[in-house]
């Protein structure tokens, strides 16, 4: 298996309603995939299925080697208990916890790794602070640190720039560019603009998936791709617009 992750004919929904239908998608090593689409289009749901937080109705997700156990997840900061009394350092340390080691104490090595990552993300001075005292941008970096401490081979970020000012955004993009040397990255966003220079694949998701392969990122395609989310969000008529740049792939 050449790809890190291969998703085939994935379908999932809440209660009776399908949110995702027949999704097929592959993630190669060191890929940078941008997953865009309107609100409620199933972006976060797809992420949760890949991460094993949700179980699909049908379809398969296959992982290369031990990839399945080495996924990094940076959720939207609104999705966890922000009032939990925990320091930045301890929060990052929880990233080391896995299904097979959660009964043991944290090792010295894990603590050193957490410290090093905090240093790298310019958070070391904040390590003793409570997570409740952080700004949105700082908290986002803590969540990234928590994901990185487990040394993932594939990193998933859900709307990472939402709470960030322009400077933090630039820092994040620099970091992602560096991380891409070592891991595949998938970013879920409703606003692809900040990632214009970074991504290699773009996938438009609105219940079904509209995916662009490699080598299509000429200016004409870029223009179309850029048109896609803007139009979706503006008018809510994704299908007609997306059909224009579907390029022979299954709608």
């Amino acid at each position, binding site marked *: 298996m050449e790809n890190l992750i291969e998703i085939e004919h994935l379908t999932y929904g809440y209660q009776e309603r399908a949110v995702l239908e027949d999704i097929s998608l592959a993630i190669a090593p060191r890929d940078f995939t941008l997953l865009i689409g309107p609100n409620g289009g199933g972006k976060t749901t797809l992420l*949760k299925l890949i*991460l*094993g*937080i949700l179980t699909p109705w049908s379809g398969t997700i296959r992982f290369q080697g031990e990839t399945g*156990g080495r*996924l990094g*997840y940076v*959720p939207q900061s609104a*999705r*966890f*208990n922000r*009032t*939990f*009394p*925990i*320091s930045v350092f*301890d*929060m990052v340390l*929880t990233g080391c*916890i*896995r*299904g*097979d080691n*959660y*009964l043991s104490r*944290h090792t010295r090595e894990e603590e050193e790794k957490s410290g090093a990552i905090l240093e790298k993300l310019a958070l070391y001075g904040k390590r003793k602070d*409570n997570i409740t005292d952080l700004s949105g941008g700082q908290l986002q970096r803590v969540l990234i640190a*928590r994901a990185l401490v*487990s040394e993932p081979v594939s990193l998933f970020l859900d709307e990472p720039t939402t709470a960030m000012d322009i400077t933090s955004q630039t820092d994040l993009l620099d970091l992602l560019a560096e991380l891409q040397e070592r891991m595949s990255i998938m970013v879920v966003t409703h606003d692809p603009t900040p990632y214009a220079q970074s991504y290699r694949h773009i996938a438009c998701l609105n219940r079904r998936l509209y995916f662009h392969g490699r080598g299509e990122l000429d200016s004409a395609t870029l223009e179309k791709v850029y048109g896609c989310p803007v139009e979706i969000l503006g008018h809510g008529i994704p299908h007609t617009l997306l059909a224009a740049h579907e390029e022979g792939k299954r709608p």
Partner: protein
Amino acid sequence: MSAILSYEFMQNAILVGIMASIVCGVIGPFIVTRRMVFISGGLSHTAFGGLGIAYWLGIRPLFGAMAFVLTAAVLIGRQEEKRLSQNDLFIGILWAVGVAIGILFIHMTPGYAPDLMSFLFGNILTVPRADVLITLLLTLIVTGAVTIYYNGFVAIALDEEYARARRLPVAALKMGLMILTALSIVTLIQVVGILLVIALLTIPVAIASEFARNFRRIMLLSILCGILICLSGLMASYFIEFPSGASIILIGGALLGVVKGVKRVTNRRKTALP
């Protein structure tokens, strides 16, 4: 003082008070951070059903309470996992049905049920020695399980989805925490009674959270707060013959009020400085 300690009922009361405080401090922070306060209220009230049946059958009331609370905990846990229906609706129903069963069986039991009031409102001064041993066992189970599964419980209290993504057995951990909550409630019912259990699970944690911002330290401080409150309430009950459960809770509530008030004044003074 040593004269008081020579009474067996007083020794029992102090032991049970300390053990209850340990249980509160160990499980209370999880209940508060996981927002399980309403669940705890529901669980403690279903105990009344078990008590009623135990009276009717003529068996030890504590066992009846334990059977009911554990069953309710498993039902609520399963309901939560399947997300079959709105959980607070289900808890509300269990709460009321439990109490109704209790009332019915007590009505059907001939004669007067003398211990009934102590189960509703708690009476730490009448805990029999056998129940002290059961409380000790429950305390050991709760503290032991939380010590072993600490990282897992923190993971689900902090970020359940992340714990799932990291392949932790989230469903089992949630059910485990629910069952430990049930066991803690059974322990606490003896001290403050069915109606007041929630207070002992929340007040020490609320006081501790004013001073500590680290989960372990909140646990430790909650235990100390609990001991302070329980033993003060016990003394109030012994010397001025106040109902023990109510004394414990009111001392706790007053302490929380004082702590909050003092903090407010000192904070204002701090911000007033140039």
